[in-house]
């Protein structure tokens, strides 16, 4: 179901917790699974549940509670734009408009060419770099301007 490399990463996370607390690794396990598979399908969540010895519904609860898990298929790249207060003050609405226009889709949608999914994000704890966005969950880009957005989109093609 998951690659040996992913399993090894999950095992590394499991080892962080006391022996009878494998469930503690569920967030990492889902993250690792998502990096490998792109999104969390029912089968993937079932696998994680089995692997950690927890009820499938409890895995699903976690996967739907935290914003950064994708429980539905999405475009090749996910761009999550923070629109919270500090970013909003620093021009996030304009960046949002620019992104929507460039990608031809709104928040929560995927561009027609399936290359990008655009999401609205909440505060990412980096307001000093506002406005900013997260790319595929693990890369942050701050001080966004329409020009910078263009070059990021170009790079991600």
């Amino acid at each position, binding site marked *: 179901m998951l690659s040996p490399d992913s399993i090894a990463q999950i095992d590394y996370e499991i080892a*962080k*917790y*006391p022996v009878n*607390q*494998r*469930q*503690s*690794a*569920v*967030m*990492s396990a*889902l*993250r690792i699974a998502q990096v490998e598979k792109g999104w969390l399908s029912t089968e993937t969540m079932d696998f994680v549940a089995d692997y*950690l010895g*927890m009820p499938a519904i*409890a895995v699903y*609860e*976690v996967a739907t*509670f*935290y*914003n*950064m*898990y994708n429980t539905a298929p999405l475009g090749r790249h996910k761009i999550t734009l923070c*629109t*919270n*207060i*500090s970013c*909003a*003050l*620093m021009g996030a609405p304009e960046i949002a408009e620019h992104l929507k226009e460039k990608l031809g889709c709104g928040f929560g949608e995927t561009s027609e060419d399936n290359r990008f999914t655009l999401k609205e*994000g*909440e*505060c*990412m*704890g*980096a*307001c*000093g*770099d*506002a406005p900013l966005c*997260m790319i595929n*969950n*693990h*890369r*942050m880009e*701050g001080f966004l301007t329409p020009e910078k957005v263009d070059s990021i989109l170009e790079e991600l093609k």
Partner: protein
Amino acid sequence: MVIKGGEVIFNTVHLPESWKLSTYVANGGYAALRKILSEKTSAETIIAEVKKSALRGRGGAGFPTGLKWSFMPRHFDGDKYLVCNSDEGEPGTFKDRDIMQLNPHALIEGMAIAAYTLGTRRGYNYIHGEIWETYERMEAAVEEAKAAGFLGDNICGTDFSFHLFNHHGYGAYICGEETALLESIEGKKGQPRFKPPFPASFGLYGKPTTINNTETFASIPYIIREGGQKFLELGKPNNGGTKLFSVSGHVNRPGNFEVPMGTPFAELLEMAGGIRDGHTFKACIPGGSSTPVLPAEIMMQCTMDYDSIAKAGSALGAGSVIIMDETVCMVKALERLSYFYFEESCGQCTPCREGTGWLYRVIHRIEHGQGRPEDLDLLSDVAHNIGGRTICGLGDAAAMPVQAMLKHYRHEFEHHIEHGKCMV
């Protein structure tokens, strides 16, 4: 982003590769830990020192750290845990990220000292989901510290052992609330627990647990190295030390500034380059999105410490200063904040789950020109029915901005309702 160093936490940020163990050690790092280990300093002595420093929790509530540590059961058979709250997600707050990014070993040493003091052998550092690069930096720092014998078994050759692990969040503001954070480490949804029992008696995996904010822990090495008195004197009575202030919004140079407690707000604003050019200062949210907004006039009179800001009718919170100039429509600002709490409510308790959506929808309606005259009373009543009636502080956090905005900027809301559009 500007980063201004100070004496306690950002003392090395100007150095190249300030995050490296070598840089940290070269500048007095891990000396405090070595000292207490070699001198077998008693826990009482350390707690007394922390109490003397008047260090107050930097996570937002400002609870005296020494006092919190004294709640941890001393003689307890079985596991106890130490947890660091690096789930910084309150809009306007971005200091813990820089601490971990630029001086991770201050946090690690602070946690090791706390672990020694509280008798815990295992600790977790819960890191905000959206800052993956910082998580990787912390993972590397922990490895470095382990390799150098500052973490793991038999630290510095003594019989003290402490194992520290990073736990990465994945996008839920509520996990900053300490019991939600514990649930999250346990592999569940981050839904806060009802208190009592408090974490000191029933914490992680049901065991006694002490939780502090990143900045709180990162202040500890200085206090142990230089003494509580010196830390206290950096700031002012009841407000010891320096504090990191995250300044964002309409300033010329947003960033993190480590300044003594009690620094006049005007000075801090100056450091951040002042209000962006050509604009005037309208309002400030002084401690993160959940603290009440203060008009510029009031803010300019404040010094940056718990007591002064509280007196002005708001809270220092996490030291997250959001500056707004005259272009800001307060209805729109509140709409965005209310959306945040609506979006981030964990959904567990009724007033917050149902009330935050109600607040947001009414404000959204007003902002979109469909307000009704009775809406303002309704808003304050709904906010009142949320505040103080929820399991955790998110309910209060959602209610407070509404009440403060209505208090200081009611006329803007009335204008919106009457004219269906903005006055700014």
